[in-house]
Structures are given as C-alpha cells and as structure tokens.
C-alpha cells in the first residue's frame, strides 16, 4: 500500500480529452472522482467514449489533454506505477487460449510482482471462489464463454488491485451467464475491497451494481449521481403511450395541455411521460381530448434507460 496517497480519490479525472488522428473527438473534457472502495459506472451506448476513457486510465490510450490519476499517480507521467495498482477485465476475451487457466493466472501474478507463495495461495483461493478449480489445468480453449469470463475476472484479482476496471464485462454473454457474472461482480467489493470502475451499456446492470453512475453521451458526461437520485428525478411512475400519429407532434400537444413535462420524451412511436403528481387517468383523458389515439398504454417504475433517453434523446424528444 502507498501510505502517502491514502486521502486522495482512487480515481481522479480532470478535463480529460481524447481526439483521434483524423479529428474525431472521442472524449471531450470529462471530470469525475471515484472514492476508494466505490463501485462507479460509466454508462452509455457504443461510441459514447467509455472504452476510450478506460483506455486512458489504463495507459493504452494517450490523452490529448487533461489528467487522470490513480491513487494520486498520474497515468501519463507515472504509468508503470499506476498500472501496478490496477487491473483490467477487457470487453473482448484477452487470454492465452493455448495455455491452461493456471498458466494464465501465473503469468499475470508474475508480471504484477506477486511472490510465488502468495501467487499459489491466491490462485487456489480464487479458483475456488470462481468455480474454476476443476478447470484450472485445462487449456482455456476448452472453456465455455462464461468460464473464460470468470477466469478473466479472477485473474485480474490475483494481484489484489486497488482499482479494478471492468470494460463491458457481460457483453455478448447469454442471459444466464450474464446474471451469474453480475452476482460475482456485486460481491467483488465486499470480498476484495477494490475500487471498481465498470463500463456498460446495460443500464439495469449499472443500477444493480454501482454506487454512482456517470452517463456519457458523445464524449461528455451528461449526468453523474447515485442511480436512486437520477431515478427520483423522474418520479415513481412512467406512463408509456404507443401512438399511430407523429409522436413528436403528439408530445408537443400533450405538453401544451400541461399533462407532459419537459422530461417526457418520444422514442419511435412510444411517448414516455413521467406521471409525477398527475393521475394516469388525467393524462389519458387529456390525450383523448386532443384526439390522440393510443394503440397501447402501460405504466411502470422509471429505469436508468429513461434517465438516459431523457438526457440524450435530443433528436427524438420534442
């Protein structure tokens, strides 16, 4: 442990930007801090800048401007020390398939400077923890997708990283394995005490796992707060109306009648309206009064999808 930086945030990002050759601005001056022990989510669709941000934090992408520090260490200036404190689970499989699971563990442990005795002990413990004990001496090429993903997460933990980056850890997995892995990730902080930065475009995953989330859109952070706080801004009930007319015009008419607020939005043929103090019946009555025929209606609690769409659906929302 590094006693001189115990008071600094685990991750500190200031004005971080990345412009690729050719002028594409992937990340546009983002700022955030992640406290030690926090599980922090970077949310957004493909192309939002999440993976580029993780690339800069893990020193494989050179920032164009701004700074990023892991436990006080600047990732651009003191890259090796920053990497010593962290580990990454990548979006795509990053393993030596021809080698056994044990060999993959062992290589990671040695590169992170774990002593032989500690490495042997931790490999056995992690293999037990992640249900890999029976697979450990088989080539990784024989593992299923879920087993390989568990191996990658367990491998990242063998160096006891203070900061763990999980870049879209469940993408491409079938639903059963995905839910299993969400359970594993949910237990990481309690069991290993690491600070976790998770990127995902599965908003339910972020809602379940993260203390705070930053929603990224087109290279910027458009919202950053606790999931519950972001959801509370939408009230406790969302009304969905499926319409067969122009949804943008329909939403504008509902707004003009005062039954839909600025936080209502339209995606495709569906209008989504936070109900708040109004009654659902009042909204539906108002819709009928302006001649709006809803082909289907439903109500549900708000989700982070709603938060995201409200914040970023510029071209869809009226």
């Amino acid at each position, binding site marked *: 442990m590094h006693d001189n930086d115990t008071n600094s945030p685990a991750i500190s990002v200031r004005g971080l930007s990345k412009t690729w050759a050719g002028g594409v601005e992937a990340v546009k001056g983002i700022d955030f801090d992640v406290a030690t022990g926090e599980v922090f989510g970077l949310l957004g669709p493909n192309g939002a800048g999440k993976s580029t941000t993780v690339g800069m934090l893990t*020193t494989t992408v050179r920032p164009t401007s701004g700074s990023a520090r892991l436990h006080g260490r600047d990732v651009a200036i003191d890259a090796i020390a920053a990497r010593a404190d*962290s580990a990454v689970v990548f979006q795509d499989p990053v393993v030596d398939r021809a080698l056994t699971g044990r060999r993959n563990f062992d290589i990671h442990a040695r590169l992170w400077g774990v002593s032989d005795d500690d490495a042997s002990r931790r490999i056995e413990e992690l293999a037990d923890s992640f249900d890999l004990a029976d697979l450990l001496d088989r080539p990784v090429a024989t593992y299923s997708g879920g087993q390989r993903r568990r191996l990658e997460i367990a491998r990242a933990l063998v160096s006891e990283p203070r900061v763990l980056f999980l870049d879209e850890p469940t993408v491409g997995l079938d639903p059963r394995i995905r839910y299993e892995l969400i359970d594993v990730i949910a237990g990481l902080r309690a069991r*290993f005490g690491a600070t976790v930065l998770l990127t995902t475009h599965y908003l339910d995953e972020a809602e379940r796992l993260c203390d705070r989330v930053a929603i990224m859109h087109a290279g910027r952070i458009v919202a950053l707060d606790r999931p519950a706080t972001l959801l509370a801004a939408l009230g406790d009930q969302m009304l969905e109306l499926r319409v067969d007319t122009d949804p943008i015009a329909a939403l504008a008419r509902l707004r003009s009648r005062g039954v839909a607020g600025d936080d209502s939005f339209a995606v495709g043929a569906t209008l989504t309206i936070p109900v708040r103090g109004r009654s659902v019946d009042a909204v539906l009555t108002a819709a009928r009064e302006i001649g709006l025929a809803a082909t289907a209606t439903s109500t549900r609690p708000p989700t982070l999808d709603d938060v995201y769409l409200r914040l970023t659906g510029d071209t869809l929302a009226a």
Partner: protein
Amino acid sequence: MSASTATLAPATVRRERPIVTRTLSAFTTLTRRRLALSVRTPRELLVPLLTPILFALVIAPALASIGPTIPGLDYMSFAAIGTVALLIPLNCMFAGIGVILDRETGARRDLLAAPVSRPLIVLANLAVALMITAVQVVVLVLAAMLRGADLNTSASGIAWFLGAAVLLGITMYGVAETLANRFPTVEQYVGALPAIAIVPFFFAGSLFPITALPWALTGFARLLPLTHALALMRYGLLDHNASGLHDIWGMSNATTMAALSLTVVAAYAATFSAMALRTFRKSVES
C-alpha cells in the same frame, strides 16, 4: 457458483523490488510465456524448417550431381549453408504471425496493462524467435552434414557463423515485428511474407555466387543484409578463402572484410530493431 461465500485473505503489503530485479523477472516471464505458446504451435516449429530441409537434403545434392561447381568449394556444402539463409528469415517472419494472433485473439492487452516496461514484450518475442531459430539451424546443419556436407569447424569460424546468424535473426525479427504491427490482419501479413523471407534468398548468393548475377543485380545483392550474413556464415564454416566476402568487398584481407560485413549486418539489426520498437509503441499507445 460459490463466489458469494468465499473470501480472500486481506491484501498484503506490496514491497518495491529493485528495478533490475523487476525487469529481469518480467523479461523471464514474458519469454517463458512466448516459448510456451510457440512450442504448442507446430506451425512455428516445423513449417519454416520444411523448405530449407528440402533444399539441403534434396535439391542441393541433386544440383551437385549435375555439375555446378564453385571454385575451391564443395557445392553440396556451399548450398547447405545457403539454406540457413532461407531458414532464418522464414522462421523469424513466421514468428511475426504470433505477434498478430497475440494482438487479435491472445492476452497481449493484459500484458500491456501490466506494470512492466512494454518493450520487454518485443524483446521476449525476439528472444524466443532466436531460440527456436537456433534449434532449427542446428537441426538443418546436422541434417546437411549427415547428407554429406563437409563443414570445417573452428572456434573463430563458429564465432563468425554465430555472430552473423544472430544479427541476421535480429534483423529479420525486427522486420517481422514492424510489419506485424502495421498489417491489420494475418492474411495481409502472410501475403507479404514470401516477398520478404524468400525472394532475397535467390539474390544473396545462396545457390550461386552473387557475381553470377547481372551486374546491376550483383550491386543490389551487395545491399542486402542476407548477402553479408551468408558470406560471413560461409566464411566461418566453409569458405576460409572468403570468396563470398571478396565478391562483396573486392578486398584481400579476409578478417577486414568479415568485420565490415558484420558491421553492415549489425547496422541493419539495430535499424530494424529500432523500427520494430517504434511501430510497437505506436500500435499500443494510440
């Protein structure tokens, strides 16, 4: 899954190790990893050996039987050393395929996230390419000797041979790593492989002296690192009159010519190694 119940022991205090120890340990780990991957890949071990073995054991004796002569030299032995000049480029270029596969489907990104100096990944790959090449050269030379090649071995001769072979290996691995970091797919890399690894073999004096070529091609051959390395290898094990070196330099002092050729190959090795490290760095730190 029992993941929710097990608990690891508390994190241990990290002790900083001296930088030399850390670097050596990382280099050893990366080298052992690359070696473990290579020995599980028959393509890397056997395929580069096939053509040179064919030349040394079948084509060279067949050519020798119909009469080509090299003044003062046994053609069979002349061609046997010539096949080493095919084996080294082929093997090093095949090693480049492993670089691309490592990047596309292997664990390279985890290595890049490790707290070690990243050029060590290239150096470890180079070390393994040289190790495998060394084993293959020994196999090839022994096979040629069993087939009838007559090689003279002395300490200084072996030193010239090894110096030339190692520097040629470093040069060719530098080319391989450079191209592997530039080509996005294995298919594109394999498409370029024959032009880089095989074509120079026909110009470098492998099967006949370079002076047998038209004068313009002789001049071109003198620029190739392979020509210098091959003349040195023959000077070490076969051609004590240094006729191959004389064809390049036109001088009379064999040691001087050998030193000059070794310098040329060393310069190529340094240049392509620097290019390899530069393209690697650009490819991993975008």
